[in-house]
């Protein structure tokens, strides 16, 4: 890199920080950051997230973050799930045709017996914690995204400690994970239309992505079943999102664990020019 290039890059970095500082000083983010009282929008969410006296505007879930993610801004999250879906599909498409060798090499035995035994216990615990995070997303901090990302750690650990061949033998294959992930996405899609379908069958009207009853759309999912809070559609969304996220990450981890020789064989092509 030439000297004048260094000077230009350094000066532009300084100018960039100075401009951001100017914007900040002029109060583009409010008079104080962080503010001493939250914004009006935040107050609306905080007072409305669980408000039995105003059920038409409430998501009826005590966790405001999940209420925003899957109720107030549910369509946003649907499209973000679509971005996630596309990123995983693009990774799978880049690695198309790459598969594990028929016969595992003799060195693919994984780590020692001690590590394997500990890992077997730990994987169960990881999955239990992930389920707790995902299925209590409407009550405590957590939800489908976090629970799914936690659950994806279990196959990752198994991949390192055992081997990719072990996972393949125990049924965690790429195609099965693709199926599981598609099932999760299908569940998200169905849940988005659940209230609408129910309303149409009973002759009423409803919104897409509706959770609780709204004006002119009187049907909603129950937010309480036998005294236990469900958050209506939030619980279903969290379950399906956890499924989709964990299976999606597992696919990518499985593809990353394919031996280098196999991948190069496919990428470089054989004698037939592919």
């Amino acid at each position, binding site marked *: 890199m030439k000297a004048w290039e260094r000077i230009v890059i350094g000066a532009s970095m300084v100018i960039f920080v100075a401009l951001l500082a100017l914007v900040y000083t002029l109060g583009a983010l409010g008079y104080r950051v962080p503010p001493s009282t939250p914004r009006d929008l935040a107050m609306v969410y905080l007072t409305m997230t669980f408000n039995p006296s105003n059920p038409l505007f409430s998501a009826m879930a005590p966790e405001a973050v999940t209420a925003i993610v899957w109720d107030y801004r549910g369509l946003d999250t649907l499209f973000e799930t679509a*971005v996630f879906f596309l990123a995983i599909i693009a990774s799978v498409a880049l690695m198309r045709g790459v598969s594990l060798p028929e016969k595992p090499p003799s060195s693919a035995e994984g780590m020692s017996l001690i590590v394997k035994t500990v890992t077997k216990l730990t994987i169960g615990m990881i999955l239990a914690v992930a389920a707790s995070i995902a299925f209590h997303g409407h009550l405590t901090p957590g939800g489908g*995204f976090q629970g799914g990302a936690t659950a994806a750690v279990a196959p990752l650990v198994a991949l390192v400690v055992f081997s990719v061949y072990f996972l393949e033998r125990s049924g965690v294959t790429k195609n099965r994970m693709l199926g599981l992930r598609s099932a999760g996405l299908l569940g998200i899609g169905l849940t988005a239309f659940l209230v609408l379908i129910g309303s149409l069958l009973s002759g009423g009207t409803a919104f897409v992505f509706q959770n609780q009853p709204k004006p002119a759309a009187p049907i909603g999912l129950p937010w309480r079943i036998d005294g236990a809070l469900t958050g209506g559609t939030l619980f279903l969304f969290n379950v399906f999102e956890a499924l989709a996220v964990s299976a999606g990450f597992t696919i990518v981890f499985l593809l990353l664990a394919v031996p280098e020789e196999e991948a190069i064989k496919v990428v470089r092509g054989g004698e037939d020019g592919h």
Partner: protein
Amino acid sequence: MGINIDTYLFNLLIMTLFANLAISLYGVLARPSLIKKVIALTILSDTANTFAIVVGYRMWPTPTSPPVPPVITRIPPSREYMDWFTARAVDPLPQALVLTAIVIGLAVTLFLVFLTLQIYRLYRTTDVRRIAKLKG
């Protein structure tokens, strides 16, 4: 109006995040290695997420009681509890945006890693200057 230590430290934090943004943009734009671009991109997204969380935080309501998470812990909430809660809870909206951004950022990063991996397998280099000169 004097400047107190909290405001000073928060301003320092925000300036640090701005500097971090500049450094990670330098990494994305000026470094030739694709791997370093991906690393800089993760730093960029993490900085942006941290910034969103800081903007959504709130000053301590009193000097001895910190803000609380935006989760209602009493069912059904009484009027007094809701007053207490809204006077202390942080803004939930940036948290909702950041939580999806983290997971999707991870998926996009994995895609970029795959792209870099395949480029390396094909051309034995991750230097964009050399990749740009390749033909066929």
